[in-house]
């Protein structure tokens, strides 16, 4: 950042005539105490295009806090501008997600309960901030650093963002989910940083005896008109709170951004490429030895008895063995020896919760639970277009398996791990062991991916249980096979769609999504309680609320209804990257291709004339133009196009696929090759872009998920357990599935509010891949992934007893590509 900024550049100084924006304004005296002054900040452009609900227009309180160096605290709560935003912003008209979506809900639920988050400027001139969110690869530490750098006029390298421990006082302000982080925190964080900058200017003004308005800031330095300079570090002590003042800060307008909207590399990239990035299992907590769990053969079985506990305890390296609620925990010098112990254990198990069930029985269950489509009253000659789609179970497992470090002593419990809702975990532990809340310390560590998995803290609960049983600290890890077989899964579902079309108009669109129950007991459900009654239509279950809040039809399809029904609570499910949207959207876009066919229109031209708004049309046009829509292609190859809107954003995806035999029959060892996506063009509009480079990365990741979900990735349920036990069974995209050409286009910012990004790329790419496949083969696919019936024959089953397979020993004779 090289631009120089005066405090007056977007605001004027106190004493100017009223009505003009002020950088800060003394309003009231505060009583003596640690917290000195309150300020409120207003976004210079709040309420502009994009703030449909008014939720984005916020006044934030911030405080200078008595501390050795400058410390500014702000609340994640919006101030007085919207005391009851929930009531004011939910219009009672169809398609609630158009007006009020999950992002708003996660946002609103945070409002009444939050407390201070603080930015500190130290004597080295670094700004530090503990983010009450989890970093799991989505880049929130980088984007948050950028927000602080922007408002403080500080180089990015001088901003240090860490992850906050569980802070029960923040309640639902400490939840990382629904791609909501940036949307729900950016105003508050910018306010605190802007306030800190004002205090630094004031300190310099006092030091030099000049008016604050004459000073400018850039690159972490305050400058005077006479050329005097003072680094933020040199002012950090003087700028610390010392007198009671209330201030009003005006945030930088978008036109003056020099950091927000510029491509930045991740702040944790160096740590990642040098192997220094520290994940839970890399922590060196004294005496926390490797610990693993022997698990039941079927889903959610429980241990009844162990016949050789003593013998296993005497095995090399093993220090402890004990039955816990989920299995038999073993602790030893190395994880390898824990695996040996698991394989030696003789355990009898209770039945699981899904014993005897298979894919076939699950889909029968779903079929029986489908809410009927209503035959709409439509004129004769109306054409009906229908489809029924099956979506198989998928694994939520990231590359880092379940992992947590725990210690249980008379002084209390301490846990380390990647937790997206650490407060719920802290409360659960306190409740379970009857401990005072302050005796439970939960530390949030960066995660090796999440995709929804880390909304659940079951690994940590297990680690605490083992630590208590052993009376020793543990470093507990799930095996890969554990993660696939007993971990969280994206629920199997069906989606039925019926649309009616007459003379150039779609009269009705009905969608009935029927799903194995999604588990929201991680706290998101509780969070919804207070608000679900306020949703249009009211009286939804948690799951239905989420569905209604996230699902939209992107096109003007007349009378539209989308409903969810759920069955079977026995599976360990979770809301994988983008919850219902990828499946529901894929069904919608496939049917859209069918309606276009009935209408005799080109798929792109049809979408263009039915799309709901200009932002949707813009991304659609962009991919069609850049991707050369409609170019002539050989038989067996085709293009597909799809859009998605959610998280206050719009995106579109154009895919080219090759389904010809030489491609499908490519031979890669222990792999499913199949059709190959050869090109992806993706356009994304998230409202306000913070970091285009990070946004592009998130879309690229989402595209890999979308392709995998359409073509290759699923779990097979048989005899009450999932057959997959390795990455060579669960066919998530590998390099041989990666499109040789991928282009992500970040559209210019269209609002002042950043939308979500972490999950946003999946739905449109899954749908576009499905549409391309349908057009290339001439047959609309109706089961996902399309290889599901066939892929199980592509791997050798790992037995389900013992629960973790032994590691190979031939790693030295394999060739490099093995």
């Amino acid at each position: 950042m090289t631009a120089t900024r005066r405090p007056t550049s977007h605001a004027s100084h106190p004493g100017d005539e009223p009505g003009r924006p002020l950088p800060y304004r003394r309003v009231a005296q505060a009583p003596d105490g640690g917290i000195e002054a309150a300020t409120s900040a207003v976004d210079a452009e709040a309420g502009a295009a994009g703030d449909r609900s008014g939720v984005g227009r916020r006044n934030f309180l911030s405080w200078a806090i008595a501390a050795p160096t400058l410390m500014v605290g702000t609340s994640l709560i919006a101030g007085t501008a919207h005391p009851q935003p929930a009531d004011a912003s939910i219009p009672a008209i169809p398609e609630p997600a158009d007006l009020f979506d999950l992002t708003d809900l996660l946002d609103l639920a945070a409002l009444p309960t939050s407390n201070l988050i603080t930015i500190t400027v130290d004597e080295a001139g670094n700004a530090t901030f503990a983010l009450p969110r989890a970093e799991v690869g989505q880049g929130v530490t980088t984007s948050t650093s950028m927000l602080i750098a922007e408002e403080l006029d500080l180089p990015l390298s001088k901003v240090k963002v860490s992850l906050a421990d569980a802070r029960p006082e923040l309640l639902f302000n400490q939840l990382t989910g629904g791609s909501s982080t940036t949307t729900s925190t950016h105003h508050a964080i910018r306010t605190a940083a802007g306030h800190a900058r004002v205090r630094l200017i004031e300190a310099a003004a006092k030091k030099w005896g000049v008016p604050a308005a004459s000073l400018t800031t850039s690159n972490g330095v305050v400058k005077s008109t006479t050329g005097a300079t003072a680094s933020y570090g040199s002012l950090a002590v003087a700028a610390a709170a010392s007198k009671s003042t209330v201030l009003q800060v005006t945030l930088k307008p978008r036109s003056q951004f020099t950091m927000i909207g510029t491509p930045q590399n991740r702040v944790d990239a160096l740590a990642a490429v040098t192997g220094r990035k520290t994940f839970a299992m890399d922590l060196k907590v004294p005496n926390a030895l490797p610990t693993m769990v022997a698990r039941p053969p079927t889903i959610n079985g429980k241990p009844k008895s162990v016949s050789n506990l003593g013998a296993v305890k005497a095995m090399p390296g093993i220090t402890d063995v004990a039955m816990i609620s989920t299995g038999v925990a073993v602790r030893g010098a190395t994880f390898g020896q824990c695996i040996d112990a698991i394989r030696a254990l003789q355990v009898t198990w209770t039945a699981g919760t899904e014993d005897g069930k298979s894919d076939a029985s699950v889909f029968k269950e779903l079929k029986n639970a489908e809410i009927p489509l209503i035959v709409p009253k439509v004129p004769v000659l109306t054409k009906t277009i229908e489809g029924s789609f099956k979506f198989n179970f998928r694994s939520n497992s990231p590359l880092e398996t379940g992992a947590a470090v725990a210690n249980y002593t008379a002084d209390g419990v301490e846990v380390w791990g990647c937790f997206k809702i650490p407060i719920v975990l802290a409360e659960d532990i306190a409740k379970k062991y009857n401990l005072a809340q302050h005796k439970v310390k939960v530390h949030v560590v960066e995660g090796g991916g999440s995709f929804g998995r880390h909304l659940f803290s079951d690994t940590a609960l297990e680690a605490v249980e083992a630590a208590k049983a052993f009376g020793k600290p543990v470093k507990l890890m799930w095996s890969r096979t554990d993660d696939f077989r007993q971990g969280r899964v994206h629920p199997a579902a069906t989606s039925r769609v019926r649309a009616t079309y007459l003379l150039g108009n779609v009269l009705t669109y009905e969608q009935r999504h029927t799903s194995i129950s999604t588990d929201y007991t991680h706290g998101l459900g509780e969070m919804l309680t207070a608000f679900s009654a306020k949703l249009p239509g009211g009286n939804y279950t948690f799951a239905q609320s989420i569905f209604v809040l996230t699902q939209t039809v992107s096109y003007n399809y007349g009378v539209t209804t989308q409903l969810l029904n759920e069955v079977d609570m026995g599976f360990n499910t979770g809301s994988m990257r983008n919850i219902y949207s990828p499946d529901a959207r894929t069904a919608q876009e496939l049917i859209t291709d069918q309606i276009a066919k009935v209408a005799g229109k080109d798929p792109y031209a049809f979408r263009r004339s039915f799309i709901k708004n200009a932002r949707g049309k813009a991304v659609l046009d962009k991919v069609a133009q850049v991707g050369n829509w409609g170019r002539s292609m050989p038989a067996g190859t085709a293009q597909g196009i799809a859009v998605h809107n959610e998280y206050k954003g719009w995106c579109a995806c154009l895919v080219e696929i090759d389904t010809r035999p030489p491609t499908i029959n490519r031979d890669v060892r222990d792999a499913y090759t199949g059709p190959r996506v050869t090109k992806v063009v993706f356009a994304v509009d998230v409202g306000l872009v913070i970091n285009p480079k990070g946004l592009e990365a998130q879309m690229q990741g989402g595209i890999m998920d979308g392709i995998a979900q359409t073509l290759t990735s699923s779990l097979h349920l048989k005899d009450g357990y999932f057959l997959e036990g390795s990455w060579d069974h669960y066919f998530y995209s590998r390099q041989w599935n990666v499109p040789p050409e991928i282009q992500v286009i970040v559209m210019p910012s269209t609002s002042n509010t950043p939308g979500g990004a972490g999950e946003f790329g999946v739905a449109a790419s899954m749908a576009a891949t499905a549409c391309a496949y349908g057009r290339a083969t001439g047959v609309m696919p109706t089961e996902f992934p399309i290889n599901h019936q066939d892929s199980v024959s592509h791997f050798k089953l790992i037995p389900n007893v013992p629960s973790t397979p032994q590691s190979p020993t031939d790693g030295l004779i394999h060739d490099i590509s093995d």
Partner: protein
Amino acid sequence: MPTHSFILNGTKVSVDVEDDVRLLWVLRDVLGVTGPKYGCGLNVCKACTSHVNGKAFNPCSVQVKDIKATDEITTIEGLPATVGKDLHPMQEAWLEQDVAQCGYCQPGQIMNAVARVNQAKAEGRTLTDADFDEIRNICRCGTYHRIRLAIAAGAANM
């Protein structure tokens, strides 16, 4: 307990551990070298990829007794030293392309890439799309596209 010696990132080390313990756990649990990651323990995910005498291998699938005293094991921590720099050109390319998302797979990806480029160079050829298609390392965050760009860029500087 038997003692095992080998050269780890340029330094001779000796560890007392049972013969059959896989090298990954010797590195991580006994020696505290945590760059190589566990992602499967089955020689599948490649998150643990390191080098033995310059060749890529997966320590999760090698017993410590099969490592000779003269074997040079290089993990991501020791990669820069193999070129006498603070960062290997491949790591620099990774930074340039901003490849990492969660970062969990990346040490393994980089170690694989370096070995692959060295092997191709020894054969007097450069990597092609067909070579990229053979890389088995899982990236559950889906950074594959930038990995390809980074390998090509890194190879140019090796």
